């Protein structure tokens, strides 16, 4: 039937999108890797593609991304998990009905707004605390990114906790456990798969996020563990090049495809791992 064929073609658009992403990234990166070896790219400690003395070691960008994502992860995991425990184990129904939409609003705010908030509100406060700091820092971007991905951790973790059967809780309460003990010794272990998955997916989101790091973390490729310094994340570098005057077809321009390919592979691996964890843990109580 003709109509079903039309539908099938529509469904193939999503497959074509994936193929187009992979082909685009590989084809354009191939030109880059013809001039720079994969090994030098992945292990080099200096990233200066725009300088006369060019160096294409991507580690400073990767480190910048990891530093910001790690700070965001600490914020999001602690606040997000605690919020999820509150919502799932403690909150009265009325509080839940108010809090959950608020978290949805938090998750729906455009990232450029978070970038504005990091630069104009959080950074000045941090500068008051650490007077040596310049306005751009991994810490400011990381803290705000933590707020951004926190709803993801809390919503997905709470879903996993709510799915833990009532009978397990009742059994623990019958033994005289306090609510805290039920939450941490029964519910959290039982929901661990969903909690880990929520965390991995949120971190992957943080690694792929662009505007907060572009606005607030700086544009200085910097191989550092110091969160008070300005850095440049992989995504921020891609934005910087595409806004600049770099002519297309040059090796400088091709760097964005190499960095994009690396970013794509990292987030793909994390998302696949996150879904695998959910799949692995999901059938336990059925």
């Amino acid at each position, binding site marked *: *039937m003709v109509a*079903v064929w039309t*539908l*099938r073609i*529509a*469904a193939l*658009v*999503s*497959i074509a999108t*994936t193929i*187009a*992403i992979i082909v*685009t*990234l590989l084809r*354009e990166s191939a030109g880059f890797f013809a001039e720079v070896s994969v090994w030098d790219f992945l292990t080099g400690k200096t990233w200066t593609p725009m300088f006369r003395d060019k160096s294409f070691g991507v580690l400073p960008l990767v480190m910048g991304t990891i530093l910001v994502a790690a700070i965001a992860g600490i914020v999001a995991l*602690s*606040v*997000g998990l*605690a*919020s999820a425990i*509150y*919502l799932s184990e*403690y909150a009265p129904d009325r509080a839940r009905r108010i*809090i959950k939409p*608020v978290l949805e*609003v*938090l998750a*729906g*705010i*455009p*990232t*450029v*707004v978070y*970038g*504005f*908030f990091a630069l*104009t*509100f959080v950074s000045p406060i941090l500068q008051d605390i650490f007077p040596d700091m310049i306005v751009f820092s991994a810490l400011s971007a990381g803290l705000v990114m933590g*707020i951004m991905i926190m709803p993801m951790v809390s919503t997905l973790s709470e879903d996993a906790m709510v799915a833990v059967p009532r009978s397990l809780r009742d059994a623990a309460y019958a033994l005289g456990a*306090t609510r805290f*003990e039920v*939450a941490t010794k029964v519910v959290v272990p039982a929901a661990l798969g969903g909690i880990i998955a929520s965390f991995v*997916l949120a971190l*992957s*989101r943080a690694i*792929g996020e*662009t*505007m907060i790091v*572009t*606005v607030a973390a700086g544009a200085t490729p910097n191989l550092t563990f110091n969160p008070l310094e300005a850095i440049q994340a992989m*995504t921020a570098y*891609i*934005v910087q090049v*595409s*806004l600049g005057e770099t002519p297309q077809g040059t090796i400088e321009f091709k760097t964005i495809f190499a960095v994009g390919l690396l*970013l*794509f592979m990292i*987030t*793909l691996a994390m998302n*696949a791992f996150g879904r695998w964890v959910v799949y692995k843990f999901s059938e336990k109580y059925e």
Partner: protein
Amino acid sequence: MAFPGRGSSPQGTGRSRAANRHLGRRKVRDAIFYGLFLGSIVLGIGALAVLLIDILTDGLPWLTFDFITTYPSRHADESGIKAALYGSLWVVGLTGIISVPLGVATAIYLEEFAAKNWRTTVIQVNISNLAGVPSIIYGILGLAVFVQLLGLGRVVIAGALTMTLLVLPIVIVATQEAIKAVPDSYRNAGFAIGATRWQVVKTIVLPLAIPGIMSGLILALSRAIGESAPMIMISALVFLTFIPQTPGDRFTVMPIQIFNWVAQPQEDFRGIAAAGIIVLLVMLLTMNAGAIYIRNKYQRRRGE
């Protein structure tokens, strides 16, 4: 004794006192952590409140009628968001027009027609993978395919096509959920009176699924209206003093304009950046309210 574990017997007093002390500690710990958990949620909501207050205090003084009806300028006090506002409406409108038929067709195929085999599983897994691809990768894709390969240039339609690919997984999944929510008994009733699968889909499933599709679409478009990174890659323009007239014109969108203002060193531009954010958030809020309204109306009708 019927309950050997009970500590009320005289011999058990010492043990019971220790157990009571222990219980006291456990209860204190319970209370402390209750406070911590509650504190976390208050912190999250507090962050949202601080963010909104910060933006309102920065932006409200700059938010005038002129701000919405003028073009950007080198001077903060003469700058407006008109070009970006129209650009956003263009991109989001076209994205909606393109992504609805594509997304709904894909969802109908997967839910109603596709055989449950590995090919269908591949498509389904692929869709959830696409939902997790960073938006800037879509920007790279759009730049390479729509702007360069197809030679469209940095124009509205290239932006809308890129945005379509970005939100397509959201539209597909929302539509699938809406189709799944239609009870099988409705379909069987159609089949029983001799309808073909195609007729059942067209006359029974789709009409019932439309509210779910609509609210999913609105959520997808509110994602589209706030996306900055891929639009920066496609448009690259931040200083535009005309409104796009056709899909073939160059464009800018609100998040790009806001990003540009945030990046300006002068203090005044912070104010108009915040004013731009207020306009963006009001549009988002309106769209979300629309989605909630449709959801509620639909739930009420089902309940009757």
